[in-house]
């Protein structure tokens, strides 16, 4: 529609709608980030606390009884089709589009097929289990 025939009020309503959408998007992204950080902190913190403060905190229950504690009320969806790329397609020693040479990975080889799972992609409750297939075998990479 040519600009000359558009009414002025229609254009500003259009703009208001975009502003509202952008604000909502910003709020949503912000809240997801905040929640994710606290989740990650909780899981990492629970493991980190264990070694430096184990003497001060209450003793863990003896490992005879299976008494799991609910930390997050709902299970995470399983990861089953995580993207996988060939090493040669990655730029060398590049933390943004590739991997750094000294980045830690979990490596596995099955029936001649090798795959690396970077630890930096497995930390946090949403990533600790990757269901995968390698060399014809169904596997779970866990951290």
């Amino acid at each position: 529609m040519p600009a000359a025939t558009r009414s002025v009020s229609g254009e500003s309503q259009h703009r208001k709608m975009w502003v509202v959408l952008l604000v909502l998007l910003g709020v949503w992204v912000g809240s997801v980030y905040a929640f994710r950080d606290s989740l990650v902190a909780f899981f990492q913190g629970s493991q980190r606390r264990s070694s430096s403060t184990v003497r001060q905190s209450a003793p863990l229950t003896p490992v005879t009884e299976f008494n799991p504690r609910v930390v997050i009320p709902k299970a995470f969806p399983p990861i089953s089709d995580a993207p996988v790329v060939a090493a040669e397609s990655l730029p060398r020693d590049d933390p943004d589009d590739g991997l750094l040479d000294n980045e830690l990975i979990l490596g596995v080889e099955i029936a001649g097929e090798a795959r690396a799972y970077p630890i930096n992609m497995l930390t946090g409750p949403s990533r600790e289990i990757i269901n995968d297939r390698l060399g014809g075998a169904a596997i779970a990479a866990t951290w």
Partner: protein
Amino acid sequence: MYARDIDWDGKKLEITLAVSGMLWNRSLVMVDAPTESLWSHILGKAMRGPLEGTRLKPIPSHMTDWKTWRTKHPNTTVLMLPRTSRQFSRRIYRNPERFVLGFARGSDVRAWPYDELHRMPIVNDKVGELPVLVVFASESSTALLFDRRVEGRTLSFRFQDGELIDEQTNSTWDPQTGRAAAGILRGKSLELLPGIVSFRDVWKHFHPNIEEYAKQ
């Protein structure tokens, strides 16, 4: 690293595992589809639900740095998800005493602390009756665990001039793959065992009576 194919009631079942949102003694509890049984990650065993008692078969894998891995496996693929952390400075390298390489088979359990492994490149050891070799590369914090038996014979190893050599035949072995590169046993391989890298105290809570290797 576990295999997802299990035997259930004489039938083969492939399960999919997810993070349950529960922790057991600070350790991950997994839940499976289709049965919704609960699994202990550190024990590799279903603790509750229709599959209770089932054990997952561990698959040998090891932690190393990217450069070491892609050099050894040039055709490797790699998982590519957005990073959830950016620990490029490698906490495991700065605080090795907090980590162990652990191995459990049946009721035999053994763990080798990373700070001890830093002091020596290899350890000839036993887990119960199983003769094992721990190989450690300190630059990449890579710990590998092998079965020391080859064709019915148990080998013992030394590290000499940067080379891994067995005492019985003086064959030279590649410490990253467990394959003999030269000597009488050239071409033979040591079986890689599924050691787990774990926080030391979390491992201890599940295996309180373990013997930890300590150099005399």
